[in-house]
């Protein structure tokens, strides 16, 4: 999408951990810009952002060195979702993590079944462009389970293993062999298509097993929807589509997303 622009900001006076997190998030979301909060009111930030053609405003909240909240506002009139962040792990703390490339990632939204779930899932999905570059083999996953939305960011690679033989790595669908003869472009393409067809046939016939290995990039956290507001941020006189535990006791058995 040509005009996708995400404005990222934080609560007032963020600490070091917020900056590390922002580093990760800015690498993760393409077309994201960070502005420091500077004590501006959120309602005014929304106005300024719409005026400067931003499509989203994302605010991360921090309390006592723990990042615990995220507000996603879709501009100009769109819904506002308030999430609670838990179990946040920075990318540098993840073992064998990778550094994300600038390829547009694929989005995977799992288990958003209800009407509210679709609304929230789509709101999260709009933060990324909808034309992923599959060559980059980068995937961002929002997996909903029992109203907990698990966020993961991976790089994947397909592997084929023929019976008895060693594993063969495939970056995409093209297998590069060491002793490949020099071919013209046309010949290469023909060979590629032949190989793909063979692979597909083999896989279908059960001769070759295909698996995917994952390398985790970027941060990892868990989101819980707190409330969904109809317009832009307006906690006082705004209308809510849904609020968690609206004055009632906690319900652990009813799932909403």
């Amino acid at each position, binding site marked *: 999408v040509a005009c996708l622009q995400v404005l990222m900001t934080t609560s007032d006076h963020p600490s070091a951990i917020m900056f590390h997190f922002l580093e990760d998030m800015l690498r993760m979301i393409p077309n994201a810009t960070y502005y420091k909060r500077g004590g501006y009111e959120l309602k005014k930030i929304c106005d300024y952002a719409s005026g400067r053609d931003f499509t989203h405003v994302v605010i991360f909240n921090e309390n006592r060195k723990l990042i615990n909240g995220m507000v996603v506002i879709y501009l100009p009139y769109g819904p506002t979702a308030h999430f609670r962040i838990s179990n946040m792990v920075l990318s540098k703390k993840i073992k064998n993590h990778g550094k994300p490339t600038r390829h547009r990632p694929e989005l995977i939204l799992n288990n958003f079944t209800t009407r509210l779930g679709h609304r929230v899932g789509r709101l999260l999905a709009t933060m990324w462009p909808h034309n992923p570059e599959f060559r980059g083999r980068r995937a961002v996953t929002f997996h909903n389970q029992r109203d907990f939305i698990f966020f993961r960011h991976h790089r994947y690679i397909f592997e084929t293993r023929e019976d008895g033989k060693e594993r063969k790595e495939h970056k995409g669908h093209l297998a590069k062999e060491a002793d490949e003869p020099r071919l013209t472009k046309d010949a290469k393409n023909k060979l590629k298509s032949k190989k793909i067809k063979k692979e597909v046939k083999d896989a279908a016939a059960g001769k070759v097993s295909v698996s995917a290995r994952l390398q985790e990039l970027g941060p990892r956290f868990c989101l819980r929807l707190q409330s969904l507001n109809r317009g832009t941020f307006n906690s*006082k*006189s705004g209308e809510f589509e849904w609020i968690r535990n*609206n004055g009632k006791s906690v319900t652990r058995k009813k799932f909403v997303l």
Partner: protein
Amino acid sequence: MSNMAAPGSLRIFAGDEMGFVKTIFSESSEQVALATMVTRWGEGQRRLSADCICVPEASGSTSDYSSSALMRSLLAVARANGSLEILNSLTGEMMASFSNIQGTRDPYAGLHMFTNNAEKVTLLSCTQGGTMRISEAEIGDSCASLEEKTSWKVVAPVSCMRATSQMSTIAVGGEGRVLALWDAETQKLKFRAKVPDPDFLGLRPKPHVSSLAFLNSDDENKVLVAGPGQVGTSKHKVMLYDVKAGPRPQQQMDFGEAMVTALAPAPNGSGAFVGDAHGKLAFVDFRTFRINGILKGTSGSVRSIVHHPTLPIIACTGLDRFVRFHDTQKKSLLHSVYLKQVGLSLAFDVCAPPISQDVVEDEQEEQAAALVAEEETRKRKQKEERKKERKEKKNGGKKRRQVEDDDE
């Protein structure tokens, strides 16, 4: 469809933000749980969203059913693009329309329909920009045009407007405005409430009328208004104004932590149903002026609450895309109907005349008599059967003895 106007049925119209007008119908008003959406009229465009819906006002205690069946079955819709439509509530056919030629976006804040005349329909509408308009149309076979009879400016912005049953007084309120009552004939301001006093901190909340309603559509003096509570919070108050008593609210109560978005006074005057932007729907008792029961079920902001004119049922709709029916006496949820679009306005249909009490009694007597007759025949049959059995037993016994005698 032919029994849609059958007496004793329950019918409600719901206007939503995609411009659809849906009819939810149940053949028997006792069986609300069977109500389903039966028709859906409209194109499904956001710019045609049905902000306000209304049916002809039933004037006070005397339900005027002398007007023709067509005049009773009308439905007025005010749309977001500025157009007003009068539809036939049984078929959805457009009977009259008014389209706003001006380019500026001025959605409607309130709509009322009056059918005092045999053929003419009067629509009272108020836009958010403050234009109060009285339009008339003659309802006939083809689509008529709503002609503007009078219009005047009311202080903008207007977020809600209500009128009494004879269109004698119009109550108007909005953000930054206090309650104002206007006279429809002279088009002058009749009453304006006073801006609330500063509280114990010395802070004065910005005046705001988020919702209002006349307690009784015949009484032009008592108005229920929802306004801001403690400054700096989102708390809202529900206030009762008595025009004759003074410009300050006579009674007030703190409602909740969100803006009150809908009010529906109960017809018997015992209290009012109040809904807010968090989805809290509660009954405020007028004797104590406190919450006397919360109606469970709604999860999103309540956009409209309507009370059935005669039955103890209320219907509410809102951002959670359901229309829910609640029992007003037990405060229980009777039924919820899922509509795929966000509902903005509701109106109960009073098209079908209520069955007169005599007829009801006669019917009940007949039914009772029939039941009694059935019982009697059944008992008689049972008696006869038992007699037969006894006879057979006796006869059987005698026969055997005879045979034995014979044998011997």
